[in-house]
């Protein structure tokens, strides 16, 4: 994973845009060689070049590394997901496909490759009455939007492809396009299932956009910045020398993290919120009329979206690329980032393996009647937390207690209200 601050703008590229992207790369004095490995590798490749070219090549390298990294992650993730699902379900999962033309199985590591070949060689079917242009554009747009979101993620110390002042805003602005693409897919297919799925996708994405955005407002409030590196910076340091200052370890941060992850599940159309492609109801939802490579693109975009949202959650709440304990800092930052990312992705898979699916009205109700109020209350909690940041001693305990109550109280009350009509039952016997 790597790379690259875009270096200072060149005379040849006069647009201010690129200037604003640059922030000088300063390697901290204590950075180990391992830590700086990606930068060193990049400089090895490009340092000889004259300035405008160097800048372009650096950017290109960053893009390529991010794209390849996530493409490989995507391939691995499909396999890991199937393996984990399999293990949860008491079966080994795909373990046959290894190296082609050999008997080596390698625990099924060749499966993504085989899937890819299959997808590429399948016939691309477009329904006759479909809106052909939109039908084609939808997967492309979806993938493009999800790739765009990778631009501002800090993958490690000094490893952020584009340093934007309003990075978080950019992230969600780019992500907002995905719902459009899903709608295009559903509408252009001219299939009733697809159309229903498109409507569902719209309702779902609109509903969950709000708690998603609201949930990280406290983080921005606390960090005082919209830039992703700034947020990571705000989570530096350790309390008592071993408890990291991650946002998730505060009452409001934990609540926000949960809200964020639930909304992220919904935004990336993952179970239990996979209503747009609910296979037991709508065949494959908006993907019903897609086959071959276009289908693979959708699949890829879904996983990219999942990765991007998880990475954002890592950045916002889990301290980004920071090590959890001081002495673990010898492990390079990008490794920590990857570990945290994998942990969250595993959570996605685990949840998928466990839960049944919600219904669309329950889904929207959950968003509007539970998550949004919770996020708003959480905003208040964060404000309280921020106002009381200089309480100490017993007051510190009181601060924790009040903040916890502010989070847990509404959760219990609203949770009870939400599940008012549902309860386990006891049965009588004749």
């Amino acid at each position: 994973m790597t790379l690259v601050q875009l270096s200072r703008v060149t005379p040849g590229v006069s647009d201010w845009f690129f200037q604003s992207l640059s922030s000088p790369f300063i390697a901290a004095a204590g950075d180990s060689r391992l830590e700086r490995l990606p930068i060193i590798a990049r400089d090895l490749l490009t340092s000889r070049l004259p300035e405008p070219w160097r800048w372009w090549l650096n950017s290109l390298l960053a893009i390529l590394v991010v794209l390849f990294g996530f493409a490989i992650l995507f391939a691995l993730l499909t396999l890991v997901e199937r393996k984990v699902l399999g293990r949860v379900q008491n079966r080994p999962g795909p373990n046959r496909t290894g190296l082609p033309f050999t008997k080596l199985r390698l625990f099924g590591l060749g499966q993504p490759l085989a899937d890819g070949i299959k997808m590429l060689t399948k016939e691309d079917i477009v329904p006759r009455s479909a809106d052909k242009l939109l039908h084609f554009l939808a997967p492309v747009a979806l993938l493009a939007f999800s790739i765009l979101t990778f631009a501002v993620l800090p993958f490690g110390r000094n490893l952020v492809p584009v340093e934007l002042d309003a990075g978080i805003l950019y992230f969600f602005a780019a992500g907002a396009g995905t719902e459009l693409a899903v709608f295009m897919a559903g509408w252009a297919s001219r299939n009733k299932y697809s159309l229903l799925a498109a409507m569902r996708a719209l309702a779902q994405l609109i509903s969950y956009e709000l708690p998603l955005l609201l949930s990280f407002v406290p983080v921005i409030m606390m960090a005082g910045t919209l830039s992703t590196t700034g947020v990571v910076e705000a989570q530096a340091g350790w309390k008592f020398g071993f408890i990291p200052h991650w946002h998730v370890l505060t009452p409001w941060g934990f609540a926000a993290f949960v809200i964020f992850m639930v909304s992220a599940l919904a935004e990336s159309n993952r179970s239990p919120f996979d209503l747009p492609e609910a296979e037991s109801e709508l065949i494959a939802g908006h993907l019903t009329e897609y086959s071959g490579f276009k289908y693979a693109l959708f699949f890829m975009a879904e996983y990219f979206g999942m990765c991007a949202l998880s990475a954002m959650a890592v950045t916002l709440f889990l301290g980004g690329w920071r090590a959890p304990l001081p002495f673990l800092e010898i492990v390079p930052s990008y490794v920590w980032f990857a570990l945290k990312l994998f942990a969250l992705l595993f959570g996605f898979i685990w949840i998928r393996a466990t839960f049944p699916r919600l219904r669309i009205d329950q889904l929207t109700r959950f968003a509007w009647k539970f998550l949004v109020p919770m996020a708003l209350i959480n905003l208040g909690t964060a404000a309280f937390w921020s106002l009381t940041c200089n309480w100490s001693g017993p007051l510190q305990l009181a601060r924790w207690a009040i903040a916890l109550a502010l989070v847990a109280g509404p959760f219990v009350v609203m949770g009870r209200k939400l599940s008012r009509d549902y309860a386990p039952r006891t049965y009588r016997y004749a």
Partner: protein
Amino acid sequence: MTNSPIVALHGTPAVAGGNAPSEICHSPLAPGGAHVRSVRDEFHGDLLEVSMGPHHPSTHGVFRMIATLDGETIVKLKPVFGYLHRNHEKIGENTTYLGSMPYTDRLDYLCSMTNNWAYALAVEKLAGQPVPERTEYLRVILAELTRLLNHTCLAGFLLQDTGASGTPLMYAFREREKILDLFEALSGSRMMCNYQRFGGCRVDASPEWLEAAKRLADGYNEFLDEYEALITGNEILMARTQGVGVMPRQLAVSAGITGPMLRAAGVDYDIRKVDGYGVYPRFNFRVPLGDHGDTYDRYMIRVLEMRESIEILRQAFAQLPSGPIMDPKAKIRGFKPKPGEAYGRIEGPKGEIGFYLISDGGANPYRYRVRPPSFINLTVLEDMCLGHSIADAVIILGSIDIVLGEVDR
């Protein structure tokens, strides 16, 4: 009668129709009086007709539902079946009595043992054929194992329909495999057992087999506990199933619903108790009843029935006598019952499975008729689905527990 027969309108506001063309009406198809908004056809834009099936992931085979949707709310649902029709009853009239036995395996292919029993019971009634006691016990053991198998499958399928990514289904199938292994060891086939004979059964159970079956029955509660921990308390499942697909009691009775569906509606009717066929009166077991008649009740009743089945199995293993498994007077070849008619029914896992036979004294039955529980239970599908969303229709169908082999015959 505590259930008020009102199916409330809910669902997404997605493609809501106007006030003007819609009206509250009593659906003629819902004698319970389900209030459903009917939308006049002049307003085409608002209604969407979706043909679910026969090729659809969750119609449990080749079943088709033509659903008319208002947004996602079902305003009309027409079940279409017969894609798997294969003249079962006519074939039965053209084969010998014994020759129909393997065909009954194919009715409800999850419960071949109970189908066999019901058919054997009908023929035994027709021919006045006694059955040895050991066989009666074996039949009870196999029927209860079948009930475990069927209800386990149903729990898995239902959860799959609600969108769980295979996990409950796989756990259910893990246990089902064990029962199927037992069936295979006894009858030679996992699903198409063809085990019962008129006046007995085909193979005796060895002590090893009985030991294995006992072990399974003893371990089954553990599996049920795990399964319930996985899913029964799950808020999503409760939200999805409670209050969904309510079947009022009098509708259930008047539509001839039987089995767990009927008991989930709160009607105490279990043929094992009512008829007391076989040696069931000797066992001590309870019949769980639901109060709401919704999908959750139908699911839970089955789970509770499984626990009762385990009790029956334990008692049966303890009481199992030794002795012959075939009545010495029973005939395999040249079986020609004297003219007459008989209806044999048992409490199958899905409901009352019955066979009606008329003999004219020949080698083939003159009339051969099946009372398939899942077909008759399916008739109330529309009444249960109206006013619910399309996602609910899928789980309501799942909770009815149909097997198309039996519905279409």
